[in-house]
């Protein structure tokens, strides 16, 4: 797989009037591969939002470089190419919708790119259909639920036909229903269109769905790997970074600490049930024998 985003030894410092600011991101190097689902985990203030804003040129690195496709984000001539390649969804659904009508908001990015009206129409309709919001095309955004607003925001990004979808805790302000709605939409787009996903989240279950996880602590990327492997092998480091394991992984860890040999690495409720089933069968086998 080829890399679509390359981050090389990037640091970022917020400019502050009063004092020398601390580095919000320190010497991070990472790649985003085309077609993968990468989750970025970390406690509050660990630099996730700062890092993700560096990936589409909203912030420019203080040190190091970020390359999207063939373009350095510092290259002013290609900044719009960069932003078209990586769509971005923010945490607060209210503060990223610009227009007073759903379909006009989805059209916003394309209008900025100077696409012809006819093509905008087609791409807006297609994007709204892709997030299953076609019937709300003429609705006012403030009448929608949080999950619906986030889907509209996704449609707005999708209409620009990006290769990557960057999402900064897109479900943090939603109720469980809205959370499911949004995650299912993203999963479907990832599966059906091969959309590359970079998801910042503090829900470990959401990270489980991805191919790869990066854990941030104090502006550094301290851990990297496939989620299951990482949650199993690096449980200590993850807890030290201020995160909690997925509930079932935590349960397995505590049961093992109590001397129960839970088989495998259960992360979800279903897997835990299966593990208990296996354990019981094993014990019965022992008694019989």
């Amino acid at each position, binding site marked *: 797989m080829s890399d679509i985003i390359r981050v090389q030894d990037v640091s970022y410092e917020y400019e502050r009037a009063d004092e020398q600011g601390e580095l919000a991101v320190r010497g991070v190097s990472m790649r985003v591969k085309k077609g993968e689902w990468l989750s970025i985990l970390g406690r509050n203030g660990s630099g996730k939002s700062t890092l993700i804003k560096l990936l589409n040129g*909203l912030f420019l690195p203080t040190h190091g470089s970020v390359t999207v496709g063939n373009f350095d984000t510092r290259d002013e001539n290609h900044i719009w190419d960069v932003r078209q390649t990586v769509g*971005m969804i*923010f945490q607060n659904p209210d503060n990223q919708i610009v*227009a007073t009508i759903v379909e006009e908001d989805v059209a916003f990015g*394309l*209008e900025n790119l*100077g696409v012809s009206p006819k093509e905008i129409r087609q791409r807006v309709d297609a994007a709204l259909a892709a997030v299953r919001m076609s019937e709300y095309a003429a609705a006012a955004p*403030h009448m929608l639920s949080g999950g619906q607003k986030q889907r509209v925001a996704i449609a707005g990004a999708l209409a620009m036909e990006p290769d990557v979808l960057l999402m900064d805790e897109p479900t943090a302000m939603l109720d469980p229903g809205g959370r499911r709605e949004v995650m299912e939409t993203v999963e479907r787009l990832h599966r059906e269109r091969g959309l590359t996903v970079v998801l910042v989240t503090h829900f470990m279950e959401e990270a489980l769905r991805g191919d790869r996880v990066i854990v941030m602590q104090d502006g550094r990327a301290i851990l990297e790997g496939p989620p299951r492997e990482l949650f199993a092998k690096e449980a200590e480091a993850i807890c030290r970074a201020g995160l909690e394991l997925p509930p079932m992984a935590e349960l397995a860890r505590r049961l093992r600490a109590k001397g129960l040999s839970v088989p495998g690495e259960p992360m979800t409720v279903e897997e835990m049930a299966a593990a208990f089933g296996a354990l019981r069968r094993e014990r019965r086998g022992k008694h019989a024998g």
Partner: protein
Amino acid sequence: MLKDITLGQFYPGDSLVHRLDPRVKLVLMVVYIAMVFLVEGFLGYLFLAAFLAVSAFLSRIRIKFLLRSIRPVLFIVVFTFVLNILFTRGDHPILEWGVLHITWEGVRFAVFMSLRLVFLLAGTSLLTLTTSPIALTDALERLLKPLNALHFPVHEMAMMMTIALRFIPTLLEETDKIMKAQTARGADFDTGNLLQRAKAMVPLLVPLFVGAFRRADELAMAMEARCYHGGRHRTRMKVLRVSRADGWACGATAATLLLILLERLL
């Protein structure tokens, strides 16, 4: 609930008047206002009344809504009427009683002046009742585009209006939330003298303003992430097209204007 408020007084519909190009409606409104100021004779008022009545009928807006728009200024209408009746001089007295001189000219002038006010309000209301604020903003942006040559920031003004329209319901909702939260902690917004009430508003306004600035910051970032870079090279999804109905509306307005001018000149 607060967020269900409609902005302005737009009354959605699918009538002939609703479907007119908003740019045409705006231009015709300017002509209409000119007519209200130009109209002079009895016939002219008749034409203008007929023009307004036909427009109102075609818009399928209920008379109740049109009248409602006049109600807030009814006092001014009545005041104008009384003032004009009392202080217009004329040669054909109807009633003379002490210092009171009511003349035929005075009555005529008072009726006409009041009618002008009513026409003005009813006509402009008809526009805002049949055209959404966002369509009006759009139309204004497109009509004023030539002002760009004079470095007047037409696009920026329109974008500001759009964002204001988008966020008013959101901010109202937030006000509602903060108010409820403060009331639950014992704040009292409804009693006391003016100063006390103004003081009670401070804990409401502070979080509201802080929130609004945070929103503005995030929105600016979201707009940049979606390649917003001002009005240059920007296209629009919705193309406004002048239809045959717009032609008819222009024709009818022109005819009324002509009749009014004719009466004035002859």
